[in-house]
């Protein structure tokens, strides 16, 4: 399969070369980066596509936020005073509480 594809590709190339030799014209190379990821679409098309993807993302995140925030959250019970928990060797700049907003 691969060899036949390669052979047909070579035949096409040879035919093109022959045609060029006959006419004496220089081959016209397309001014395009065919192997570039964005070679196949124009930027206006891509802009519209990514705009739609962004809107889909915003809608998904909004639905997820409403669902999550309306659910509420549970509070965990206070753990026993294990020695590796709540290590306090010195004060925070705002006091002993780790939370700057609830510091007194």
């Amino acid at each position: 399969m691969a060899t036949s594809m390669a052979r047909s590709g070579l035949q096409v190339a040879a035919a093109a070369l022959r045609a060029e030799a006959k006419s004496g014209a220089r081959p016209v190379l397309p001014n395009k980066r065919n192997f570039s990821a964005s070679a196949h679409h124009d930027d206006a098309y891509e802009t519209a596509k990514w705009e739609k993807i962004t809107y889909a993302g915003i809608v998904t995140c909004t639905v997820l936020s409403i669902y999550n925030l309306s659910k509420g959250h549970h509070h965990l019970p206070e753990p026993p005073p294990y020695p590796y928990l709540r290590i306090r060797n010195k004060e925070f700049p705002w006091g002993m509480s780790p939370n700057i907003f609830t510091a007194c």
Partner: protein
Amino acid sequence: MRPKRAPFFTTLGGGGEGGLHTTGAKWFMIESQRHSYHLVDPSPWPISGSLGALATTVGGVMYMHPFQGGATLLSLGLIFILYTMFVWWRDVLRESTLEGHHTKAVQLGPRYGSILFIVSEVMFLFAFFWASSHSSLAPTVEIGGIWPPKGIGVLDPREIPFLNTPILPSSGAAVTWAHHAILAGKEKRAVYALVATVSLALVSTGFQGMEYYQAPSTISDSIYGSTFFSATGFHGFHVIIGTLFLIICGIRQYLGHLTKEHHVGFEAAAWYWHFVDVVRLFPFVSIYWWGGI
């Protein structure tokens, strides 16, 4: 204030406004620049930034130990660094936009610089995920031989952590929208796309703040707290830096600095933003989800 062109430019056949020579000191580049590189003018900002960094580190050490005036020196140092960042980047933007020094050859420098910077950032965050995995894959006896350690309350990964994870990739889609809009010459759409990008980024930071506020553990709660808050905290810090970077790009797009052919600053911001939004998936899977159940 830029010095006026020295008179010998005219005597040597210079004149006209076409040349790229900028100061009298560069008298040897008489008519026109015969290369595509940017020979920068002397600048005070490297030394001012260095002095700011010195004041910040010395002030920081003084602040964390019982010395007088540490907080003042630290604040002064930080203000000095922020000022230097502002004026230095302001100068770079002027050199690029008004003076036209950023040729294709010059643009390669910031491109390589941005890529290498992002590679170093990947390595930096990798170290924190390594620390978390090191501590959680074989938990020591001191923390009960289990992960999360005995007594540690963890966040439910299906709540805010799961909610926050798709917000950053959505923001990544919005920055891609902005990129294509710039390439297509749709200047207004690009500004709207950047507003969407930044809004999603701010929502993400807001949820992260809410999550920290409600978190049942703190950074001083065992190795779990240390690894959890250093990894997620540094990621959150990178989100904030990326947001500032994108805000600057949005302002520059609004002011018309970015063109179809020349928008290196935007590209660097977009690369950085994709790095930040992809990296978010790692803490979600390995720290919140695997490490929290």
